[in-house]
């Protein structure tokens, strides 16, 4: 197990390095795109351009620029914004991380619990009305644009109904956990539900199809032959092996969430997380902030994949020896 973890950790670091190079190349070395021109604005004179290049170090060879930026980002930790010169990037990112993690983890808890309950119930009562409900929820979940759903939720909870039924819904924004669990959870409730709706159905569907498959396996027949009750067979025997697929799906979606759906949700609900920070820095082409945000997001994605790999190996020991 430790050897496996070590190998995976090295692979994860290599992937992070490759991503940092890739992002850097996208912004600094795309043919026909000059970052200096973007910073200097439209119709800047040649002198201005040259001055901008020199002042931002864009006249140096590309690998030097990469090295300098990575040193400022990881070793000196004093990377500054291109737009608000002097504003340090890392404190901004550090402020944003708890917001994004609160959003994603809270939503994940909700949708995983919903999916477990629905999946197990659908397996226990397979062939009844629960099956089509889960299929429909799953398809709708993968078909709804998350930002649109968020806007509709805003419309319902913040508009006319805000004076009556939804008077208890606070205005948009994030409240830190240090101000108490209640306000924190209340401010995040609708963003959580919006995200959870998208994922709960498809997870329930995946779990159900895995569990129904597992119910035909020999070890289930064995468990039943030993006289174990049906619910215990479901929960202790079928559910555990079926979780493998759900866990690996979760790793992928966590990545997609941090980098995508969470970005859109944060923009829609006005949460100042990594996604919103990325979005704002993209608007004014603030390269150091973009780079830092993307790398932090990628770090969490790679970390999630790493944890999923370990969980996978723990749930299914055969994986360790591949």
């Amino acid at each position, binding site marked *: 197990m430790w050897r496996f973890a070590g190998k995976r950790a090295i*692979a994860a670091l290599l*992937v*992070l390095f*490759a*991503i940092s190079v*890739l*992002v850097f190349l*996208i*912004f600094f070395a*795309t*043919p*026909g*795109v000059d970052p200096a021109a973007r910073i200097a604005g439209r119709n800047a004179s040649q002198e201005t351009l040259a001055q901008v290049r020199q002042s931002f170090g864009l006249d140096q060879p590309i690998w030097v620029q990469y090295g300098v930026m990575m040193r400022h980002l990881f070793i000196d930790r004093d990377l500054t914004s291109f737009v608000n010169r002097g504003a340090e990037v890392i404190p901004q990112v550090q402020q944003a991380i708890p917001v994004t993690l609160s959003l994603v983890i809270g939503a994940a808890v909700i949708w995983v619990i919903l999916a477990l309950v629905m999946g197990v119930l659908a397996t226990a009562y397979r062939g009844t009305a629960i099956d089509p409900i889960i299929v429909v929820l*799953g*398809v*709708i979940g*993968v*078909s*709804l*644009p*998350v*930002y*649109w*759903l968020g*806007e*509709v939720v*805003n*419309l319902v909870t*913040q*508009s006319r109904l805000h004076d009556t039924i939804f008077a208890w819904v606070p205005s948009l924004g994030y409240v830190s956990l240090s101000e108490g669990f209640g306000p924190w959870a209340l401010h995040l409730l609708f963003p959580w539900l919006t995200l959870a709706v998208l994922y709960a159905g*498809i997870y329930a569907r*995946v*779990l159900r*199809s*895995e569990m129904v*498959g597992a119910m035909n396996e020999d070890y289930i027949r064995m468990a039943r032959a030993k006289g174990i009750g049906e619910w215990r067979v479901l929960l202790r025997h079928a559910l555990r092996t079926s979780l493998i*697929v*759900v866990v*690996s*799906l979760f790793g992928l979606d966590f*990545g*997609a969430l*941090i*980098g*995508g*759906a969470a*970005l*859109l949700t944060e*923009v829609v609900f006005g949460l100042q997380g990594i996604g919103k920070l*990325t*979005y704002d820095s*993209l608007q004014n*082409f603030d390269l150091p902030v*973009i780079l830092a945000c*993307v790398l932090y*997001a*990628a770090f969490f*994605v*790679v970390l999630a*994949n790493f944890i999923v790999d370990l969980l996978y190996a723990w749930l299914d020991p055969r994986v360790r020896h591949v």
Partner: protein
Amino acid sequence: MAALVVLILIILMCLAAPLYENYVARTDAFTSNVNGTYVVDGQTKPVLEASTEGLGLGVNPIGPTWSSQFFLGADNQGRDVMARMLFGGRNSLVIGFTSAIICCVLAGIVGIVAGYFGNAVDAVLSRALDVLWAFPVYLLAICLSVVLINSSLTIGPVTLNSGSIILPILIIGIVYVPYVARPIRGQVLSLREREFVQAAVGAGAADLRLLRREILPNVLPTIIVFLPLMTAINMLTESALSFLSIGVQPPDASWGTIINDGVGLLYTRPMVAIAPGIMLAITAVALNLLGDGVRDALDPKARLRGGV
């Protein structure tokens, strides 16, 4: 089947956009109509009224009339939302579909080459896919779009103008390649060990013949199954990029850009944002159901999206 019918109806509706624009709404969907007027109950009213709510800033466009003109109301430039939505649907559908084709073709090539030739080729391609896999898709698409969308791009003899819809098509097509290439690579790896392939190798078949006659026909159903699913995913991605104003560029429209226009009017004229979202959701549901149907017909054993 119902899914296919719904999809065809939506495509026909979008194809009929110019007819709707000229003969039903009698308007121009792409030029701003700030000083336009509209006749209701014999009275002539401006399409945009100065807002009386709040600070009195901004404009209050005409709401849904549910009749031929301004069926869904107007946006903040006084343009007919229904007409724009039909035109926007064309862009959404075209971008979703072509990028899905690009994605599936590229992924097919990468997956087959990596799986078939193995060894060093496979190692290089698989590692590259691993990196893209770990890169959050939306983030990659957003990074590429931000860099490319406002600058014209010259690749060899081809020049793409800024704001061309080719850019979102290429970007969306490329970022999803790992999602399709990975399962195909796995399938080719196992196909290569099968008896009929070994028999063809034993009969002295060349690589190209093996690929064309033995591997490709067996992989093709999987690729076809992915096509409607990728179209749905790509349409959603396109709309998200357009919503962040780095996809389809104005005055061109797509469902995403119209939702973006509608956000500013959300609390006064919610239909501008709601209607294109509903169209998008219906289209995506139809495509997903179609994908499930195609899979059941072609490849019942295929496992997409985890276990289903």
